[in-house]
């Protein structure tokens, strides 16, 4: 019944099947919205965060999701600035993913702050020394950029394009996309970095504190690199997943390989720098502030295994897989590596957000634990559901994978 709205030349499941697919996600979204409403109306006591665990699941989610969403700007950069035409196959999908990740992150941030109505104060009384100001600025600007990038994809929908003004606007906007890709790249570099800086500047938390270049702690650069490595892998994973779920061939295999290779190169650089950074931190930064690094790893369950996992298991291993042409060509290896990369980025964000806060600083402190409340979990899942829904609708009605039509030809 809705075929007239779909991209010509591709097939999608029946509307009823689609309905069955989105229904559970919509229910999850509704539950999350209810949880968010509880937080708005009753306050953040609905969460299990507290004065000591001032950040919880949501900030972890924000950091992870934004790292994964880095694929949008990075692909845009590769396509529009470096003219890597073969990645055009995934650029639309990347933009939608980016939009989903960033808007989801901003939405959850609005629930996370105690006084969302005052969020605009950051633009009015900005503290230029705060990493969070930089993050807020860049993320809000970049979300606008992503929206503007998403707009042409929507306007090109088969029905919408019949409106002449939409069509003309889309056409003119598309011509300027290179500017937006450039702006998006600058913004993303900064806020991905600043998100890392967010923790790296915490001089009161020697577990997170890092020395760095000029005003930026080393985590600033590590975050950029890890996000750059994770972005393509996330696109690779989602593309593969969508392809599995929809049972369609969406892109040519070379695209997968290309994404994997780009990710691999960045990942190996990241892993090396991360190793150097960790060594400097263990031998210099941390002990200089009165905290021998070994003591961080005495608290169960955060033993040294977490360092090993971060650097070797989720860093070196996938980098090697992705850099090897033979392994990369194998779909199973490629996907394993992509999962490891995305998991590694999540683990890195987890360590910085959760472990930092769990570790004691005062001598009479205890090691703290934290388990999110159902409201936090529901809001978290709602963001996932929101992403799935936006992506599902986009996939159904918009032209996310230009190669699909050709690949669908008998």
């Amino acid at each position, binding site marked *: 019944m809705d075929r007239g709205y779909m991209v010509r030349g591709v097939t999608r499941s029946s509307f009823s099947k689609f309905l069955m697919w989105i229904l559970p996600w919509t229910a999850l979204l509704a539950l999350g919205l209810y949880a968010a409403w509880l937080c708005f109306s009753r*306050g953040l006591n609905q969460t299990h965060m507290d*004065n000591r665990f001032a950040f919880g699941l949501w900030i972890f989610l924000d950091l992870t999701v934004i790292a994964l969403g880095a694929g949008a700007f990075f692909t845009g950069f590769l396509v529009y600035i470096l003219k890597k035409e073969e990645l055009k196959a995934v650029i639309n999908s990347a933009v939608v993913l980016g939009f989903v990740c960033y808007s989801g992150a901003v939405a959850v941030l609005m629930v996370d702050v105690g*006084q969302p109505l005052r969020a605009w104060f950051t633009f009015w009384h900005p503290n230029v020394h705060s990493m969070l100001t930089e993050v807020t600025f860049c993320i809000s600007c970049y979300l606008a950029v992503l929206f503007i990038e998403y707009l042409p994809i929507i306007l090109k929908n088969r029905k919408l394009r019949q409106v002449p003004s939409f069509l003309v606007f889309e056409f003119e906007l598309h011509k300027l996309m290179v500017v937006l890709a450039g702006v998006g790249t600058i913004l993303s570099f900064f806020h991905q970095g600043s998100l890392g800086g967010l923790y790296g500047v915490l001089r009161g938390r020697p577990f997170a504190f890092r020395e760095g270049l000029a005003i930026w702690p080393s985590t600033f650069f590590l975050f950029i690199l890890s996000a750059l490595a994770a972005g393509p892998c996330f696109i690779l994973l989602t593309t593969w997943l969508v392809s599995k779920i929809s049972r369609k061939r969406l892109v040519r295999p070379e695209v997968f390989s290309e994404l994997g290779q780009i990710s691999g190169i960045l990942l190996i650089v990241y892993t090396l720098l991360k190793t150097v950074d960790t060594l400097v931190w263990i031998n210099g930064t941390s002990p200089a502030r009165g905290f*021998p690094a070994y003591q961080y790893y005495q*608290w169960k369950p955060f033993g040294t295994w977490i360092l090993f996992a971060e650097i070797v298991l989720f860093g070196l291993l996938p980098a090697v897989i992705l850099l090897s042409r033979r392994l990369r060509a194998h779909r199973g290896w490629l996907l394993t590596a992509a999962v490891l990369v995305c998991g590694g980025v999540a683990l890195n964000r987890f360590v910085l957000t959760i472990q930092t806060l769990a570790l004691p*600083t005062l001598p009479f402190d*205890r090691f703290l634990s934290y388990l999110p409340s159902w409201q936090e979990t529901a809001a978290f899942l709602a963001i996932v559901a929101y992403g799935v829904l936006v992506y599902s609708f986009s996939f159904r009605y918009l032209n996310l994978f230009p190669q699909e039509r050709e690949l669908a030809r008998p």
Partner: protein
Amino acid sequence: MTTPTQKKSRYGMVIDLDRCNGCGACMMACAVENNVPPAHREATDRTGITWLRVYRFNNGLKFPNNRSVFVPVPCQQCGRETPCVSVCPQQAVDVDPATGVVGQMPERCLGCRYCMAACPYHARYFNWWDAVWPPGMEKTLNPDVSTRMRGVVEKCNFCHGRLHAARERAAAAGRDTLQPGEYVPACVEACPARAIVFGDLNDETSEVARLARRPEAFRMLEQLGTEPKIYYLTRQSWVRKVSEDEVQMARKDQTHG
């Protein structure tokens, strides 16, 4: 408003741990002075608001050698690279150059809690609930201090209302500087043991400056380099180690006990 204090002050405290019996008078006086509401029914030691919090800390030894010390921890008023000031995205935290007091503007705060993550002393508190007083008790609020709403961060500001009042009194008396003892925070006044000494650390002759120079004086997490203005005094050597990093044993014992 122009500051009537011409000379730059650096207000600080010296807390004698050997005199503190953890009676809680300082915490009470602080909450009463600063209109901190009573705990919400579900509040815990991790969600409550105690601008000044007295911790109990023990040496981890077995009976009868186990000993405890009570450590009152207000905002440590860090004087250098104040961790909470630089992180606030909207300038809701500032250091008053005239007094060195780290101020918090709850009406500017959006409740992002970044400052709480930044503070190594956990001296910042978030309003997880609306501030509610039992019926009628709102009549007992201090008119010099405004109440805070849900969703913002607050903390010790060395009883800013009292500083204000003291300055007004001084100005009324035609003076532009405060005399020692004219301005003391509520906890200092309330402490029955006189364990807390308050004053201007810049004034070499003040008692607080004299005590801060004593060899028994130390500051918590001094190596972080944040130059807190709260000094602690103790003659008990195991307590002294609180300021150093080798008390892991005690930590572990407390946690895994």
